[in-house]
């Protein structure tokens, strides 16, 4: 093979590898958010459902947000009970005294869809603690109900257990269950109950590969990837929220980043030019001192100073230009670290052999600095900038909270406290994707502009 082809296929190989890594990283982020914010967070219904309304209201909340699905894989067979009538009422199974036998069987009643007229009751049959994969006509009822009685014992009708099934057109069927022992018996009794002329049919669902993915984890993935989450609290879609509040966050972080970069570049070039003189030493001292003051102290002092000088700008957004107060604070707080970083990079370059050679040949330092050194420094500096861009959209969580700016960072903080999971996972996902993309971009930049890099 010719060398160009070798290089091309190496590039292709490299690009594919990096893409695969990127995809895996995003998957990893989604897995991590799932564990942190869904598994560990546990039951979030207390924040959104009035507890006094009882278990049914909580169940409705779970169903609406798909929290009633199993965690990772959904391999439950279903007992499909199809209401083939159509009417305004909700399909319901009750036993003789009105308590829901559905609970005994761990059945969930899904909302009736008029177009299909069918309703799927998912049952998670347990056999001595293990899930039963295969629901068949011979599965004993005791296994399906986890040992609990099929009909609630409060009715006192252990002698003649029965279900009352109300169909959506108002028909009420009495299903006699005294002789039912297995799943097949149950199906037969429902079919044979008087008044049921094909209006209510029962069957065991066949397992379809797609239903395996009807679980919380995969819905979580889907919601993230399609960015379709909706806030539990306000039902706004994520897109709306980002559109509405993102501009506030960006209004702080974008100017802050640009100004920090600008000042840091100027100062570090200046300091590097005068290295080993007192200017350098003073500069280094100031940056180190600046880095050591806690961020919070900058915010508090900054706001206090602002308040003494021009109170209207100290908080809130009455004037758009009052956004520059947090911007200014962010710049000052971040300048120390940035200057140090740039200075290190520039000095590394200046200490290289070619610079020494050029000096020895008599080339003045300023032109070396601007023509050669900076160009070579651009790559690491640019890399650092690009990988911080993804985190711009979340804004500075602390500044937003402090100054009362209604941005995304503040929203993220309150969403974590109030357990508004879709917002938290959605915003985290967004940041992660942007970060991964930025990593890819920097890799490409390195690959293209730095011929020393061997593509692995």
């Amino acid at each position, binding site marked *: 093979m010719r060398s160009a082809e070798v290089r091309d296929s190496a590039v292709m190989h490299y690009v594919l590898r990096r893409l695969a890594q990127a995809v895996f990283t995003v998957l*990893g982020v989604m897995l991590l958010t799932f564990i942190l914010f869904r598994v560990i*967070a546990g039951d979030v219904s207390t924040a959104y459902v009035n507890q006094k309304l009882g278990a049914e209201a909580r169940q409705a909340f779970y169903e609406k947000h798909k929290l009633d699905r199993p965690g990772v894989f959904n391999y439950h067979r279903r007992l499909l009970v199809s209401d083939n009538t159509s009417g305004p009422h909700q399909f319901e199974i009750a036993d003789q005294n009105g308590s829901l036998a559905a609970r005994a069987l761990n059945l969930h009643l899904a909302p009736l869809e008029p177009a299909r007229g069918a309703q799927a009751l998912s049952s998670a049959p347990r056999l001595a603690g293990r899930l039963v994969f295969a629901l068949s006509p011979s599965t004993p009822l005791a296994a399906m109900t986890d040992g609990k009685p099929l009909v609630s014992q409060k009715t006192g009708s252990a002698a003649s257990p029965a279900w009352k099934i109300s169909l959506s057109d108002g028909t009420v069927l009495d299903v006699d269950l005294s002789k039912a022992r297995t799943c097949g018996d149950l199906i037969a009794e429902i079919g044979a109950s008087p008044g049921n002329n094909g209006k209510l049919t029962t069957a065991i669902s066949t397992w379809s590969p797609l239903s395996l993915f009807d679980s919380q984890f995969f819905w979580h993935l889907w919601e993230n990837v399609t960015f379709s989450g909706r806030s539990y609290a306000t039902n706004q879609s994520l897109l709306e929220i980002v559109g509405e509040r993102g501009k506030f966050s960006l209004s702080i972080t974008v100017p802050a980043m640009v100004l920090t970069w600008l000042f840091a570049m100027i100062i570090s070039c200046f300091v590097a030019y005068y290295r080993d003189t007192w200017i350098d030493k003073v500069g280094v001292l100031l940056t180190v001192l600046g880095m*050591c003051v806690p961020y*919070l102290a900058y915010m508090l002092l900054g706001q206090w100073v602002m308040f003494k000088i021009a109170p209207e700008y100290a908080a809130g957004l009455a004037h758009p230009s009052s956004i520059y107060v947090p911007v200014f604070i962010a710049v000052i707080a971040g300048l120390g670290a940035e200057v140090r970083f740039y200075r290190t990079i520039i000095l590394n370059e200046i200490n290289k052999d070619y610079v020494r050679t050029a000096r020895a040949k008599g080339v003045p330092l300023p032109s070396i600095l601007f023509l050669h050194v900076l160009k070579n420094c651009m790559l690491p500096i640019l890399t650092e900038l690009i990988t911080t861009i993804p985190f711009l959209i979340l804004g500075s969580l602390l500044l937003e909270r402090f100054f009362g700016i209604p941005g995304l960072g503040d929203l993220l903080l309150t969403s*974590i406290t109030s357990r508004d999971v879709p917002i938290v996972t959605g915003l985290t996902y967004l940041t992660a994707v942007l970060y991964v993309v930025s990593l890819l971009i920097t890799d490409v930049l390195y690959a293209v502009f730095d011929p020393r890099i061997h593509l692995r």
Partner: protein
Amino acid sequence: MKKSHETNATPVSRGLWADAALRLLRDKAAMACFAVIIIYAAIAIGSPMVFGDWSAAHDYNHRNESPSWQYPLGTDALGRSVLVKVFLGAHVSMTVGFMSNVIALPLGILLGALGGFFGRRIDDFVVWLYTTLASIPGIILLIALKFAFADKVLFPGSFFELDLSGMAGVYVALGLTSWVGTCRLVRAETMKLKELDFVLAARATGRGNLAIMFHHIVPNLMHIAIINFSLGFVGAIGAEVILSFLNLGVQNLPSWGKMINEARMDLIVGRWWELTAAAGATFIIVLAWNIFGDRLRDALDPKLRNV
């Protein structure tokens, strides 16, 4: 080029560590900072014992007083001496800084060395792990972990009992989220060391992979560990301050972050002492660590080693 006095004698060859120690000892600024660190550590260890009965430390008749002879740094809203709070806060900050590193450093070194040394799939896994963690903003992870830790106790009843709802939760959470930087550096360094001759020699004599890793490579990474210890310490103190701002920091003891958080409104009415004391205490120790860390890095950096 300067020549040494004994022009024909061979120069004394000292090991890396002895060399570094000597350089540091000669460096006045570094020694001053080290002294500050030792003082803080002493305060950190001693203050819980000296000021143990914290709950009785109130004095309702002396609330919000400015600094005086009796209360050198003034008093806070409940009448407690700000100086005592600063000392107890030192205990919190130093413990958090130290313990979070105790968790983060070994984790970072282990994963970085494994990834750098073995390459291929293991390396892919390690890179995937730390890229995933780096994609999520640090504060979010910290908050999520703190919520996960609420009310949990690890290894109850044993000597290692960790009550995660208190200070232990703070440094465990910090430790679990701050190992990425170390890991990256260690991995890069390991990949370089792997190619060096002494590793080849060790392989030639038939030493196993793990033995090579732990006997030869890791000792050469220690300088990274020490440098990152100082960085990590500083980061942990800063993170603790931010967590306290969000009411997620240490609850039962005073901490500098808590003091700064509570002092927000005080500045407006002219009560500057609590904020200044806490911010000042933080500033001094962070400055000391920064300078000491810098000098440490210079002393340990092989590249600056021209005799």
